[in-house]
């Protein structure tokens, strides 16, 4: 094995690692303390997350996460394409819940443009948001359990997620990169077969989740590896800007669906799950309970779903109805204008955020009145949650690293943008 030299580490990272006084030298790694490089090609870091750990024996003295291995420049790309064309790119941010990102993007654009989708479209958006939250949490729970050594749970949660992907298959026509929402509505109305499948899924979901839980909740190995590991206090969590299950696991009752309701979340009856311990186990409990809450919400949405249009009829802002494009001149011109020149929202800047499965996903858009954003900033929850890693790691063992990374569930596609 090759020795890690000074040239392999960026000077700023080295400085961050070495901030505490020590007798350490890089060339003489095994002498006193050592630097361990974890990732970016490590199966337990959930993608291409690189962690540099400074170790004293097996105890972590300092940890610096290095991001950017999956950087594709989406914020810059958004400046060169219309608001409409950016929808497929949002799929590739948080690829475990692509529909949540689609919804977040179109809500931001709608806020900028000053339009609102019809009620049925908004209910469909809510439905897909909650289902994708379940899907994302299922992967998080499964992968988390596998990180600490329980393989079966991963297979079972993936089976459940597969059923949601089957719903997407009928509803959107794609399993993974859905591209389902449109500015001013959704791509197509929800089909009766898709609704039937959602109903079926929700009915059997609770029992199957309980089965996964039975494998973990009384499991001594699972509990002992997570209890009291990676503690973040409520104050630290707020200071670091953590959101989502990571924040709620620390006992802060903050959920954008409740704090700043978007869509029709103010009409929904749901609990914001919080656990006050702030360790890995608490974050796991939050995810399990949130998946249940989402299933409860899906039932409410299905019973309340109104009839009507799924796309707003607004010239110059929203793509016209297909049947009208084929037969009417006005709509045909509209179709060409929107595709060629974009929707031209008024000049201004907005910030719009939704509660993604991972936390607060926000889009900050500056418009100069053109068809494309002048500047687009993505506030991605995984990126912000990764800031908590150094704090959580300090004082724990090397084997706890995978548990802590798994418990905040970062998706690198989103963290690196």
């Amino acid at each position, binding site marked *: 094995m090759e020795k890690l030299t000074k040239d392999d580490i960026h000077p700023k990272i080295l400085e961050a690692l070495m901030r505490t006084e020590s007798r350490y030298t890089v060339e003489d790694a095994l002498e006193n303390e050592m630097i361990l490089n974890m990732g970016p090609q490590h199966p337990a870091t959930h993608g291409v997350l690189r962690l540099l750990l400074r170790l004293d024996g097996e105890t972590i003295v300092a940890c610096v996460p290095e991001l950017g291995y999956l950087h594709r420049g989406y914020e810059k790309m958004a400046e060169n394409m219309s608001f409409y064309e950016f929808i497929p790119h949002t799929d590739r941010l948080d690829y475990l819940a692509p529909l949540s990102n689609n919804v977040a993007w179109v809500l931001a654009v709608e806020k900028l443009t000053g339009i609102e989708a019809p009620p049925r479209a908004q209910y469909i958006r809510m439905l897909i948001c909650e289902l994708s939250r379940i899907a994302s949490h299922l992967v998080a729970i499964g992968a988390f359990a596998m990180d600490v050594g329980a393989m079966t749970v991963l297979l079972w949660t993936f089976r459940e997620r597969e059923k949601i992907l089957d719903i997407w298959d009928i*509803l959107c026509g794609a399993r993974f990169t859905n591209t389902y929402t449109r500015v001013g509505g959704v791509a197509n109305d929800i089909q009766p077969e898709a609704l039937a499948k959602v109903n079926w899924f929700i009915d059997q979901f609770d029992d199957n989740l309980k089965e996964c839980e039975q494998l973990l909740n009384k499991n001594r190995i699972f509990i002992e590896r997570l209890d009291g590991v990676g503690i973040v206090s409520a104050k630290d969590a707020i200071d670091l800007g953590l959101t989502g299950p990571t924040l709620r696991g620390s006992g802060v009752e903050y959920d954008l669906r409740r704090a700043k309701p978007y869509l029709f979340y103010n009409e929904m009856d749901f609990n914001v799950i919080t656990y006050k311990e702030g360790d890995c186990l608490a974050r796991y*409990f939050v995810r399990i309970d949130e998946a249940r809450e989402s299933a409860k919400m899906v039932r409410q949405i299905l019973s309340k779903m109104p009839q009507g249009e799924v796309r707003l009829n607004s010239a110059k802002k929203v793509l016209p109805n*297909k049947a009208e*494009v*084929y037969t009417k001149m006005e709509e045909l011109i509209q179709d060409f204008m929107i595709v060629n020149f974009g929707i031209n929202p008024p000049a201004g800047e907005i910030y719009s955020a939704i509660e993604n499965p991972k936390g607060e996903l926000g889009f900050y858009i500056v418009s100069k009145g053109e068809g494309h954003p002048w500047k687009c900033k993505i506030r991605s929850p995984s990126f912000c949650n990764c800031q908590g890693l150094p704090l959580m790691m300090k004082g724990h063992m090397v084997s706890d690293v995978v548990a802590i990374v798994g418990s905040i569930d970062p998706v690198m596609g989103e963290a690196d943008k």
Partner: protein
Amino acid sequence: MSLRRRKKDLTFWEKIYIPEIVKGLALTLKTMFKPKYTVEYPEVKFIPPASYRGRPVLVMEENGKERCVACGLCSRVCPPLAIFVQAAETPDEKERYPVKFEINMIRCIFCGFCEDVCPEEAIVMSKDYELAFSSREEAIYGKDKLLTPIKQVQDRINFLRQYK
């Protein structure tokens, strides 16, 4: 809500772990007799629903000609810039037709925007999902590969008319 346990809540029997192993094994053994959720793919083919977005194809009318009028809207909207259209005039009623219509299937991301904006219902997503190439040139699909008789994509067209 099931009981949320921490280290201190574990009972003696849970701590000695052996009964729990037996319980866990019983649970996993039980799933062996449940119906399988996987499909044995190459033998059993996945039949996509009408809403499925597979390979984009050009609709060929009954008379053997394409519907496309080469307006170029699909190539304009295509997010990965996969479509290339070259227009020419024709004595037919529609006046324009594509001399060259190429989709680079390596670039295509199957988002369905081309179909979404097409003013003539000329390009639709088929159910074709088995795409493999041995070279980059092979991946550029010209009109010969894209033109599909309308009967084969009728399913998708009906879906578009009903739900879009």
